[in-house]
């Protein structure tokens, strides 16, 4: 879902009871990230011995605009030198709160 704090849109996700909050607009062309789906992606690096592998299942937020992918935990974009701002989420007495 998307929440608005002041003028800032924030995308909030509930993944099996774990909450994640990220800046809600894709830096590419401002698509609303709250409408993105979560899936995995392919990685290929020294850790995988340069083999392509499927990884991060359920932790990759895919922008509904044109498919940029973000790590939902860190906000880091896969394949880009770019990171979305992330927000801490606290749950108290059944209330979900963003720590700003």
């Amino acid at each position, binding site marked *: 879902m998307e929440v608005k704090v002041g003028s800032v849109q924030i995308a909030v996700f509930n993944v099996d009871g774990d909450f994640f909050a990220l800046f809600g607009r894709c830096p*590419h062309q401002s698509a609303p990230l709250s409408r993105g789906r979560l899936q995995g*992606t*392919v*990685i*290929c*690096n020294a850790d995988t011995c*340069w083999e*392509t592998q499927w990884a991060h299942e359920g932790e990759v937020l895919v922008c509904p605009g*044109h*498919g*940029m*992918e973000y790590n939902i935990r860190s906000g880091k974009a*896969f*394949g*880009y*030198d770019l990171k979305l701002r992330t927000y801490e989420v606290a749950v108290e007495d059944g209330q979900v709160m963003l720590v700003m």
Partner: protein
Amino acid sequence: MADDGQSVIVQRVEPSSNPVQDEDLDQYGDELAGLTIVDVDVHVDDTLMFMLDYMEGHFRKRMETVLQADFKGEPGNSLRNMIAHIAWLGSSYDKPPRAKLATKEDLLARMQKGIIDYSILFPSELLPIGYLPEPEWAAALAAAYNQYMVDAYRNLDGVKIAIVVAPQHPERAAQEIESHAAHPDVVSVCIPDVGVNPPIGDEKYWPIFAAAARHDLPISFHGIEALIHDNYPLRVAHFHTLMQVNSMGFPFTSMLQIMSVVCAGIPVRFPNLKFAILEAGLTWMPFIMYRLDAAYLRYRTELPALEKKPSDYIRDWYIGTHELEALPRRGDLVKLIELYQGQDTTMWASDWPHLERDLIAGFMRYEMEDTLRRKILGENALRFFGLKPRK
């Protein structure tokens, strides 16, 4: 042909102008004094006859055969002319296909003006090496060229050499790098990029990049318009004029090879390896950078090794100014460089003494801050080739 005892008289045509003269430098003597000037694309006479003494066995025999051939008024010792200009022979009339080649003395005379601090020597004859169908023969030519250049041009003040490798024989190419890397006058590995098929990012070529990275030798891609083959990257035989081939051959090849290297993830695998593109002009740089970025949005998962978008890698590539396009306004070059973020990567190159060489006035006519002018005239090249300032 009837044998009437007469032989055909073949006369070698000399160019009507002498491109090895370069009074243009004198004109800017005062303005350039005190600045570091590196000319990153200089050519000396490297016709095949110089390589004969560096070839052995059947390759030497073969070279002797090549040197005896005469071809339409051009001595048979020009691989370049044979490959490049047959289809369009004579089309430029008063500018014969063969540029007057610079001797060692011509080069030294130019250096002795005291304006140019470094000249980086690149091959001429072997620029179409990528087209040669026999890897062993191509590798033998490259080895002979490198040894000739290192013997003939060593220990000259301000003269540095780019060795050439035959990409169709990656193992021999890597060996060439191993054997010359320690030479103090060898500053780069030139990969002539035209005709290289498959494109240079292919995994088969990685031994070349690995060897260059191991020795911290930067890679320079150098183009040529020599494209009569119905082959990658352009089916140029279908164009009716050499002008069209020349205009598109260099930048298209450069764009395709940059795309190939970046998309293969080579900058990720060899993060310290530096790359330059020579003789392709500048204006296409923003196009390839941002065009790739646009497609990368949709196809990133095909290239999972990339950690940044393509333009973030390409902006690290160095680029020689030759053949510098004449932009309409004097402030336009700065705008162009800003677009491809090339303030720290653009390097002045003349292509002296080839016919299409750039006079320095072509660059000086553009307005820019002194700091940027200094970077382009020399500082960027010092960093790329790992050279110490001489002034």
